[in-house]
């Protein structure tokens, strides 16, 4: 009886410590990739503090849509990343149930159907951060001239975890692309201030 009680007291301790060690071990595995993100939704206070974002996977040129209204597609459930870590040059979607493609891919990532976002886990992600940092990140995500980059840690079995988020100023090309998309304000020339280094 005494032995059983000792075992009952040790079991939770050993189990929790084991889980901790396993989480630590898993968190150190994998390859870090940097994914640009676009847009975000405000954090949900009930679930703690996190920032939510939409991944902006670099797709192949022939997949990119040139003309016409945007097609609404279901989010990919599996992607094969290629490039030189942490830089992704291409993220190609594939069928998550196709084992052959999965085996052939060096760096696969899969949407976790049991995760928070389910099958949409490759479209939307979240990063848990402290309250203060979440607020700062929120402000910077809203800034037009900053590009948010999320670092994900991808493992051999297709699981991945967002580990960090950072910001960089937009490159010249990205700025051009953004300006091209947006409607320019039609203010009289006297009202526009000349920008340094630009001759408009």
């Amino acid at each position, binding site marked *: 009886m005494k032995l*059983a*009680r*000792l*075992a*009952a*007291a040790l*079991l*939770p*301790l050993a*189990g*929790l*410590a084991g*889980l*901790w060690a396993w*989480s*630590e071990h*898993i*968190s150190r595995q994998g390859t870090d990739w940097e994914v640009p993100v676009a847009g975000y939704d405000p954090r949900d206070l009930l679930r*703690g503090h996190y920032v939510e974002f939409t991944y902006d996977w670099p797709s192949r040129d022939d997949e990119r849509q040139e003309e016409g209204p945007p097609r609404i597609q279901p989010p990919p459930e599996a992607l094969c990343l290629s490039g030189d870590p942490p830089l992704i040059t291409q993220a190609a979607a594939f069928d998550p149930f196709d084992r052959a493609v999965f085996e052939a891919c060096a760096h696969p990532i899969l949407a*976790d*159907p*049991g*995760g*928070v976002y389910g099958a949409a886990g490759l479209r939307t992600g979240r*990063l*848990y*951060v*402290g*309250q*203060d*940092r979440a607020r700062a990140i929120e402000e910077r995500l809203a800034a037009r001239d900053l590009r948010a980059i999320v670092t994900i840690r991808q493992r051999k079995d297709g699981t991945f*975890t*967002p*580990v960090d988020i950072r910001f960089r100023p937009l490159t010249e090309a990205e700025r051009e692309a953004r300006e091209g998309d947006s409607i320019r304000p039609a203010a009289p020339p006297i009202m526009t201030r000349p920008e340094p280094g630009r001759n408009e």
Partner: protein
Amino acid sequence: MATGRIERWHEAGLIDAETRDRLIAYEKEHSRPIALWAVFGIGALAIGLGLVSLVAANWEEVPGNVRLALHLALIAGALVALWLREDRLTAASPWVVEALVFIAAVLGLTFFGHLGQVYQTSAPLWEPLATWLLLFAPLMLLTGRAWPVAALLVGGAIYCAWEYNLAFGELARRRDGEDAPWAFLALVTALPVLFAPLGAFLRSRSTREAFWRRLEQAALAYAVAGASIMTALASVGAFESGAGPLNPASQLVRAAIIIVAGALVAWGRQGVSGRMSGAILALAGLIVAVVSGANGIELLAALLFMALWAGIAAAALIAGWRGVFQLCVGVIALRLIVLSFELASDLLLSGFGLIVSGLLILGIAWGAWRVSRRFAPDEAGKAP
């Protein structure tokens, strides 16, 4: 406060002067400075809240591993105190042991969330719940003393079973369509009822009779509440004839588990009380088995509900559970009132109809009161 009342009793001739003086002297001697205690309490509460908010404000400053280590150390502290001092603490008050087990178990549950926070992991809720049950159920079963731990254990098992049912059912529906293993999922949701025979069997065979009684009661309450909710679902026509978590085959699986649990309770706890407890489970099982037949038929669903509670009332009469009997009378009276609204909702649209339903409610309440007074078992018999 008491002095004034004692004076009044004396004036009414209920107690003589000598008794009055003795009572007043006793009250003076045993008076508790409630106001002072309240001030102490407020001070202690302020300090506690301050500590909590200090920790919360600096939560992100503390490295994750340090936080997890502190968390684990708290659990270890509670467990070591239990292991080394359980007998001495029990001698002081069984509630101290109960509180320690409860706190250790709850801290263990929050440890999963804490791990997820530090390592940015997420998992379907049933996974941490199941792991927690696996790790902490032996501790709770071996050291629980009263209802909080019993309720935590049975409640945790029920929550885990239904989370599993929801998560896996949704996944299975998407993947397998009609062929999802609904019967297996129904079996999982019925498993927590098996705590009833466990509690019933160990009640007379353990020094912690109160804990096993509560465990049996909690599982019994799950079966009765489940059967009651199913009659309510039938009343609104929620049962599906095709594949799904509430199809007839799933209901039969649930019913079988509950009836087996009832038989085991009757076998494991000899005596009238044990037999009646088992009979209630068997009745709940029968209701669960046939309830989908009453789908969409309000009157039949209400009759099934009332049959269940009338059966419990009969068991309470035989076993002498006064409180349970009165609860049954109240529940049946409420269901009658709801049924009258369900069947004759258009009555409420006219003044005459309102008067009729008001009279009906008064009649039911009066009838319930008479039944309760006339038939309720005399002595304050303990619940099952």
